[in-house]
């Protein structure tokens, strides 16, 4: 017997742990990890709303699928940028990346 509130609270914990990491981390890769946490919480919410409130439709299901694909693309591009930055500046801490010009 699982109510919808329990699932939403789980995803809220995930979301705000991600917000906390996003606000306090210094390394850009750790910030990206926090963004993945938040995206995962939203995916879980889409699936939960679809399953528990509108079990006849499947909009949330497909939205979660496309969101997973888009977050994969986003993290691939972001990681390419990080590797390139590290190759140029030998540093990926956010408070020391002040010269973002080529």
């Amino acid at each position: 017997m699982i109510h919808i509130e329990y699932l939403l609270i789980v995803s809220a914990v995930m979301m705000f742990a991600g917000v906390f990491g996003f606000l306090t981390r210094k390394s850009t890769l750790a910030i990206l990890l926090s963004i993945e946490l938040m995206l995962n919480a939203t995916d879980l919410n889409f699936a939960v709303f679809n399953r528990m409130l509108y079990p006849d439709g499947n909009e949330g299901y497909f939205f979660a699928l496309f969101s997973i694909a888009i977050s994969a693309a986003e993290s691939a591009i972001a990681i390419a940028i990080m590797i390139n930055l590290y190759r140029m500046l030998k540093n990926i801490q956010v408070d020391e990346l002040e010269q973002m010009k080529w």
Partner: protein
Amino acid sequence: MFIILAVFIMLSSFATVMTKSIVRAATYLLFVLLGTAGLYFLMGFTFLGSVQVMVYAGGIIVLYVFSILLTEGAKDETFKRKMKDASWGLVLSLIGFIAFVSVVLTYQFRSLVLTAPIEGGEELTTIESIGRHMLSTDAGGYLLPFEAVSVLLLACIVGALVIARKR
């Protein structure tokens, strides 16, 4: 089963943002993603759960670990943060969490109670229905986002190669 998964997800997501080593953070994130896939399986969304395991746990986490090792390495302690900044972040995220949870608990959802999907019964989303929805242009069809995502992935491959190549 749900309680085990929920406690596992919450503890791992706290550990993701609290741990000092960034490789450990990536590993705890892997645990969070696997627990979320378990929740999808529990809800009967088996295809979504397997996509989560394959794409997130199999692809993205491996990519993250590779990039961590290519840039900073495991030995670097990346959690040096000022105490003031950390407390501000903690206060802000606690405020957001409390607001969210109070809204969720006061809103009366007229929802189903999740039970385990019946064994051998009518499945919610079969692979066949997913394929038909994915490639139809009717109402409830998702051909246009499907093609848009494929173009996006192609652009992403080209962009990642252009950005990360050696000059």
